[in-house]
């Protein structure tokens, strides 16, 4: 993608400073409508939640070192895994790539000055923070013990914990997602730079577009479902509890109608990031651009039709199970297409082993394992055995952590020079990526074996024959924890001591690299005009160095 600047007159007065220099006061940050500043606000918030959710995991992993209860009580244990799930899903994973990288990059990548609705964008952040405050309050007041899935009638009629506060928090959180999705959809439709047709869009934008559609369509269902839990809990109107006339499975259908697409909310953006990284670090246009782009849309659509695979052993009808199993196999195909195309992109590329690329390659491997074990879970005969065991835990952590978090970290490293204007220390970056890869596999691979052996999830105590694999998993979690703290340290260090990045340290092609690092408040001095397809890495082509 190239920008021809000569014949364009500046659309707006050139702005002297970068977006950071716009103002240093707290007020200038809290009242900003600049998408880049809002992205930084999100970055600070979700980093805090990532480590909070991670701390909960560290405690229960330590508890699980031994079969008997020793570190925490069963009530505390149940609250810890609930906190871990709620925070990681709604306050870290779902907003991670869209709200941080998406916010920062969508306007830059399409050559726009900001998102379509800058004030709404700021409102999204405030809604997110308000919902986070309510959820934190529910933890501080004593916690929630329902698990992040809030299954009824336990959550609506039986749990004595702070369910209402947490449910209200998550309800409100959903509106932050919906508004962000709406903002992205309108922005991508209406604000693309001249010449930037749909077939020239970076794959990250395609994935953001698909994600936004899921945000807007699925999240309201979560809001409705949680409202019904609240109504039953407070007014005892029978919706889910059969003792007052409800149907307990109704909740699971509604919940997974949202939460399965939510899985794709977490992984689609990750796929978008990886497409960018693979392309840049092998200096090739992604193999099968249109197949990767359209498979994102296919995943978004099919993702709405597979929720019943969470209900194979719930008492759902056998025929329901058969249909949902078939559809779950179909949704695997677009993911497989992506993996094959990424791999083919590497063929005869010019591959640089920079930190973001290490994350991207790690992503492909771990996501493939996560996806293939998904095939095992979609196989009805096997799922009946491993449903609600550690096999499921391992599977979705390979997707969520091995996939989404690896891609997020890869993206953070890749765009860090753009966001901060500074280079991070490359050696430390590679070292941490390796530590994370090793720690992750040691944590979660043994859980596949545990699950097939029959170890149920959400167990505070367990029979001693499972211990060996739990010990491995906890050892891995300790390594993983170190791996996650390292980037926090050296990225912060680089803000002060890092070398200046220049506008395009990776010699990448995207529009975001054709402006200053960090970008000026209005992103571009002149509106870029796009004359080429995305990812035109060709010999001798000059990249912007301004």
């Amino acid at each position, binding site marked *: 993608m190239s920008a021809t600047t000569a014949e364009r007159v500046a659309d707006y007065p050139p702005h002297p400073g970068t977006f950071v220099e716009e103002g240093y006061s707290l007020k200038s940050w809290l009242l900003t409508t600049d998408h880049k500043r809002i992205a930084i606000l999100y970055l600070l918030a979700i980093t805090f939640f990532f480590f909070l959710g991670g701390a909960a995991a560290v405690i229960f992993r330590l508890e699980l070192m031994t079969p008997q209860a020793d570190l925490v009580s069963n009530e505390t244990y149940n609250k810890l895994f609930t906190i871990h799930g709620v925070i990681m899903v709604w306050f870290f994973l779902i907003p991670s790539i869209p709200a941080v990288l998406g916010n920062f990059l969508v306007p830059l990548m399409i050559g726009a000055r900001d998102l379509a609705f800058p004030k709404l964008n700021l409102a999204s952040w405030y809604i997110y923070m308000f919902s986070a405050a309510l959820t934190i309050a529910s933890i501080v007041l004593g916690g929630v013990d329902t698990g992040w899935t809030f299954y009824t009638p336990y959550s609506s009629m039986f749990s004595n914990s702070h369910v209402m506060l947490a449910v209200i928090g998550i309800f409100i959180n959903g509106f932050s997602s919906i508004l962000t999705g709406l903002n992205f959809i309108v922005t991508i439709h209406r604000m693309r730079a001249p010449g930037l047709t749909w077939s020239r869009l970076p794959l990250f934008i395609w994935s953001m577009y698909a994600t936004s559609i899921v945000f807007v369509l699925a999240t309201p269902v979560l809001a409705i479902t949680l409202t019904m839990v609240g109504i039953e809990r407070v007014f005892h109107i029978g919706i889910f*509890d059969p003792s007052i006339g409800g149907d307990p499975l109704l909740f699971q259908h509604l919940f997974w109608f949202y939460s399965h697409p939510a899985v794709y909310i977490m992984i689609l953006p990750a796929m978008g990031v990886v497409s960018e990284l693979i392309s840049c670090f092998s200096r090739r246009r992604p193999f099968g651009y249109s197949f990767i782009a359209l498979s994102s849309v296919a995943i978004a659509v099919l993702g709405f039709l597979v929720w019943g695979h969470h209900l194979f052993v719930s008492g759902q009808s056998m025929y329901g199970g058969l249909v949902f199993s078939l559809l779950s196999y179909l949704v695997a195909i677009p993911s497989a297409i992506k993996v*094959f195309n990424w791999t083919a992109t590497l063929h005869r590329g010019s591959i640089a082993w920079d930190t973001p690329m290490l994350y991207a390659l790690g992503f492909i491997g771990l996501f493939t394992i996560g996806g293939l074990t998904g095939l095992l879970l979609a196989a009805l005969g096997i799922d009946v*055995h491993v449903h609600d065991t550690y096999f499921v835990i391992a599977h979705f952590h390979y997707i969520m952590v091995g996939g989404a978090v690896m891609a997020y970290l890869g993206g953070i490293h890749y765009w860090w020079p753009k966001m901060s204007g500074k280079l991070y220390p490359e050696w430390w970056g590679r070292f941490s990526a390796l530590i994370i890869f090793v720690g992750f596999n040691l944590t979660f691979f043994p859980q596949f074996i545990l699950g097939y052996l029959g170890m149920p999830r959400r167990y505070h105590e367990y029979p001693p024959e499972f*211990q060996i694999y739990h010990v491995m998993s906890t050892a891995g979690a300790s390594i993983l924890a170190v791996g996650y703290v390292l980037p926090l340290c050296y990225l912060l260090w680089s803000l002060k001591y890092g070398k200046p990045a220049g506008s395009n340290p990776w010699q990448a092609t995207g529009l975001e690299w054709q402006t200053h690092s960090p970008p000026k408040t209005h992103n571009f001095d002149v509106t870029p005009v796009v004359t080429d397809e995305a990812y035109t890495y060709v010999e001798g082509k000059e990249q912007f160095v301004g």
Partner: protein
Amino acid sequence: MNPESFRFVPEQASSIAGEVDLLYFCLLGFSAVLILGIGGCILYFAVRYRRKPGEVPTPKPVHGALRLELIWTITPLVIALGLFGWGARIFIQEQTPPPDAMDVYVVGKQWMWKIQHPEGKREINELHLPLGKPVRLILTSMDVIHDFYVPAFRTKKDALPGTYTQEWFTPTKVGKYHFFCSQYCGTEHSKMIGWVYVMEPVRYAEWLASGTPDVPAAEAGAALFHTFACDTCHGQHGPTLAGLYRSNVKLSDGTVVFADDNYLRNSILQPSAQIAAGYTTVMPAYKGILSEEQVIQLIAYIKSLASAKRPESTEVKP
């Protein structure tokens, strides 16, 4: 911790376990081939096409290959459909208990399992079973959702409040196996575990006969039937219960339903929901009056009448 800890597969103690493991290992093999293939390609390409220091990158431009795209779209699709069929075949088997299966009632509550055998024997957190005989567990819950999971049998099913679900297996190996509650049910979820004892049929009969003599569930149900004065109508001017179980019942709105355990349960607890054709709702609802165990006993009694000839038999296939 001993070498026994390094197991990869639980014991195979049911007729379906071997089939599940076979599919599992085939899928693992398939996954391993793909992961090694893709991982191998990635590593090979990453090393082979590694950018040397100081090198000016001159990659060859990419042209998407439609043929390649079609191959790697259609091949996985065909394989996926095959895997779906294989998994589905096992599942259909798992979901279809044979008609001669022995019914055992399992009631979950926070945080224990109450089990009742047709012969009247009751157990808590233990389940004794004879070797080689198909067993159908009829599950329900008194509070939240639980799940009865026996890893050695490779099967589980949620126990829902307010309805019956079923789960069946044929134990094929004498031994002692864990069962777990595998649906999170609150504070002591991880304590809701117990043991299945699979015994030689002779030993099982001995076990049944041991201890205080038990009243068979059907007999207890018959007594309840009398106590609650059900016989005032049923068998007189009310719908007859003889031969009702597993027959097709015509309802007053013209639909035909299959009289399974759930139908009997609902008809006792909320009779007005489904009215047999030709009758009016005079029967009171027993919801909140009968305990889960009493309902089970009444159903056992009605089932014991199943062999009797149904007067105006409506032989519609389900």
